[in-house]
């Protein structure tokens, strides 16, 4: 049962972005379109699962003094792997994610889960945790990206939703840098209200 709990907690209760406010840099930067958000989410989830798996597998072998450098090397290896594979098979996505692929290394969610969960939990639970956190991160990015793409460009997944008339005069600020901050602020505020409602009822 705890396996299921580890899997689902990342999606809402401990959502890395909306609840823990981690991994902000890629979250804000790549959410200009839903496509980018999905690509980034997939890349980060893959790295998260692999690093949690290895860290958990070797948690009794890696000396605690050098555990952080070891985790960083493990994470950086998988990030480079994703970078190369994406460049070979998905060059367009690789191009639009740009510098944020190497920066998955310093995404605090991944190091945070290695240090905070995988190094003291069994392999299966760690992988479940990674999948849950990855899905939570991806979902959060898709939510913000949907708002930004829809308002700023009138499209969703590059399909025109709001019509050509809107596209000529879209709410550009949403897709520019300030839009990311402001929309995130409102989403976080919304989650706070939700939490409070829930707390009040119990």
């Amino acid at each position, binding site marked *: 049962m705890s396996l299921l709990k580890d899997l689902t907690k990342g999606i809402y209760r401990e959502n890395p972005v909306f609840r823990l406010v981690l991994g*902000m840099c890629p979250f804000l930067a790549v959410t200009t379109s839903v496509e980018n958000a999905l690509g980034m989410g997939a890349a980060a989830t893959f790295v998260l699962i692999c690093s949690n798996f290895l860290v958990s597998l070797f948690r009794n072998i890696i000396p605690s003094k050098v555990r952080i450098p070891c985790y960083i090397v493990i994470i950086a290896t998988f990030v*480079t792997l994703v970078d190369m594979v994406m460049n070979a098979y998905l060059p367009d996505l690789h191009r639009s994610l740009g510098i944020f692929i190497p*920066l998955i290394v*310093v995404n605090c969610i991944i190091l945070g889960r290695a240090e905070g969960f995988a190094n003291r939990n069994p392999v299966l639970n760690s992988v479940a945790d990674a999948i849950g956190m990855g899905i939570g991160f991806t979902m959060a990015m898709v939510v913000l990206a949907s708002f930004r793409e829809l308002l700023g460009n009138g499209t969703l997944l590059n399909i025109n939703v709001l019509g050509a008339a809107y596209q000529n005069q879209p709410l550009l600020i949403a897709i520019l*840098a300030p839009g*990311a901050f402001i929309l995130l602020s409102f989403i*976080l505020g919304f989650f706070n*209200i939700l939490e409070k409602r829930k707390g009040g009822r119990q």
Partner: protein
Amino acid sequence: MNSTVLLSALLATPDSGSQGFDLGKMMAIIIASIFVNNFVLARFLGICPFLGVSKELDSAVGMGAAVIFVMTLATLGSWAAYNLLLVPMGLTYLSTIAFILIIASLVQLVEMILQKFSPALYSALGIFLPLITTNCAILGVAVLNIDEKYSLGYSLINAIAAGIGFTLALILMAGLRQRLELADVPPAMKGKPVAFLVAGIMSIAFLGFAGLGG
């Protein structure tokens, strides 16, 4: 508008070879990294420390100084490793690992040296140093310098300017948040949400620099 014309005139100096040092290009890099492409407000790098350490002005200044310092050193180290080791050996695909290890060991080294030789500076910057390893602005500037094919001189200038840009955003934010303590914020927006809102408004202000230097 005047400065735009001036800068583009400077930039258009004929035969500004990539080896030579060009004042116009230098100015363009500095202005772009501090204002136009501000690391925090336009490029979204270093958001975690930006939110975490911007509650008080003093710690913002300390963090800013530490970031400028480590950024410059990390650029020096990563530039040397990339151009003197990885490129000649054809191992450029290892650059991400190499850079992050250089940054992590640099931070450790700086911490130890400061602790030993300058306890005053250590007590001022010490608590920020461990946080810097996972500050993506540091790795970001190293990767960007390689992507832009900057020479060592330009890389260092870019690093210092990016650090100043980060510090500027951090200090402005800290000042605003100190004022915000006294403001009547709706309960749901207290804390992080209102901080992001303020960052968004600052980011709008920084959009006004668009066009300067390019």
